[in-house]
């Protein structure tokens, strides 16, 4: 049995340097996830601020409407369809590169979920906090920035982390646009060796380890943020 395993391992990872499919794929997965997270946070933050401002003050009506459409469309369609639309439709006459396309698609997708997370974080802060800020003489933006946002952010760290874990795993459909991510790397090996077990196991373990490391990181961050309240 061990001999068979060793042979499997050799066939799947060593022959023809097949392990490179995994490491190259992992690089792309990390790249896509990292930059998509950045875009997601920026976009989500912006949308959440616009939506909350509209809710509180009824200003920014048009922007709020646009944000509403954005949230509805993005959250109402599967990310893999959005990815293919980005690649085959939106970037149909200009090719900015597959990784870039994926970053944009996943970033925009994530932004919609992050926006709702931020928004619920903002509305979870008591109205009194807002009033206390305004009564001191802070304007709307300053109150948001100094008083509401830091508290809202702290409240949403766990949900936000969860969203990024979901995003990391969702990038596994990047292969649909001919991009070689971690999952696709495993697929390619599988298509060469016709054994599903080893490549899929390797891919699964790598995702798992990444998610666990990230969760650990978040716990540390959470603990540090919590400390300020006790």
């Amino acid at each position: 049995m061990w001999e068979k395993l060793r042979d499997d391992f050799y066939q799947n990872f060593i022959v023809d340097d097949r392990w490179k499919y995994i490491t190259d794929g992992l690089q792309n997965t990390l790249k896509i996830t990292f930059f998509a997270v950045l875009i997601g946070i920026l976009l989500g933050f912006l949308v959440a601020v616009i939506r909350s401002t509209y809710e509180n003050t009824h200003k920014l009506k048009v922007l709020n409407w646009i944000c509403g459409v954005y949230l509805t469309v993005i959250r109402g369609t599967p990310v893999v369809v959005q990815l293919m639309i980005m690649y085959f439709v939106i970037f149909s006459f200009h090719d900015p590169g597959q990784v870039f396309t994926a970053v944009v698609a996943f970033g925009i997708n994530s932004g919609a979920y992050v926006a709702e997370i931020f928004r619920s974080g903002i509305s979870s802060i008591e109205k009194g906090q807002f009033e206390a800020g305004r009564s001191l003489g802070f304007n709307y933006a300053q109150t948001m920035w100094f008083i509401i946002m830091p508290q809202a952010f702290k409240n949403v760290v766990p949900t936000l982390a969860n969203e990024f874990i979901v995003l990391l795993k969702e990038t596994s459909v990047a292969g649909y646009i001919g991009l070689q991510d971690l999952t696709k790397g495993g697929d390619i090996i599988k298509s060469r060796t016709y054994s599903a077990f080893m490549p899929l196991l390797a891919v699964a373990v790598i995702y798992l380890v990444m998610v666990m490391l990230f969760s650990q990181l978040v716990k540390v961050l959470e603990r540090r943020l919590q400390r300020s309240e006790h």
Partner: protein
Amino acid sequence: MSINNMEKPLIQVQNLGKKFGEMEVLKDISVDIYKGDVVCVIGPSGSGKSTFLRCLNRLEEPSGGHILFEGTDIVDKKTNIDKHRQKMGMVFQQFNLFPHMTILKNLTLGPVKLQGKSEKEAREQALKLLQKVGLADRADSYPNQLSGGQKQRIAIVRALCMNPDVMLFDEPTSALDPEMVGEVLTVMRELADEKMTMVVVTHEMGFAREVATRVMFMDGGYFLEENEPGEFFANPKNDRLKLFLSKVL
């Protein structure tokens, strides 16, 4: 209360009205508040007294009328309300300290960000005021480590750090356990002794009687009676005030 100040009110409320939808909470209120006044507003719950107070710094948007603060109509949309709010300290029933900041940070945030004071300058002032309310040792604590009474004293100091011309108190002792009411009232009494102009919405009749220069009774969106405290409590004239006092005293 010099004669000079008597002539020029700090806050002039003219025909103030406030509606929530169809409901008219404040009806045509006019009142002048002078420098050094300690005005206590009493009345049954739902009488509009908190709404009146919150209109004074436009936390509630008035539906009509004018409020002249130091000569400027702050109901006018063109007025930069943020500038004027710096001069109007507010203390809330629920304290509303910022839980993500230390006490010191709570106190220095406004002066540093809004008044251009240096951190050092703001801290020195904050520590001096903390000393006065007996909480200098809590400068580095977080709000959640404090008792309700301590929190409210900090909230008062936070407003004072902005060097306001008037202090607005919205039922400052209503959320406190009874044994903590005293420490907060003591701080407020000291403020009054220093001739701080104060508008206090309260249920503390004792405080109103002892500290106020004027007591006003509000019900149904109107001020029904106003007097200096001695006369106000000894000889109420309005029937509804009589009824109210018979219940609370």
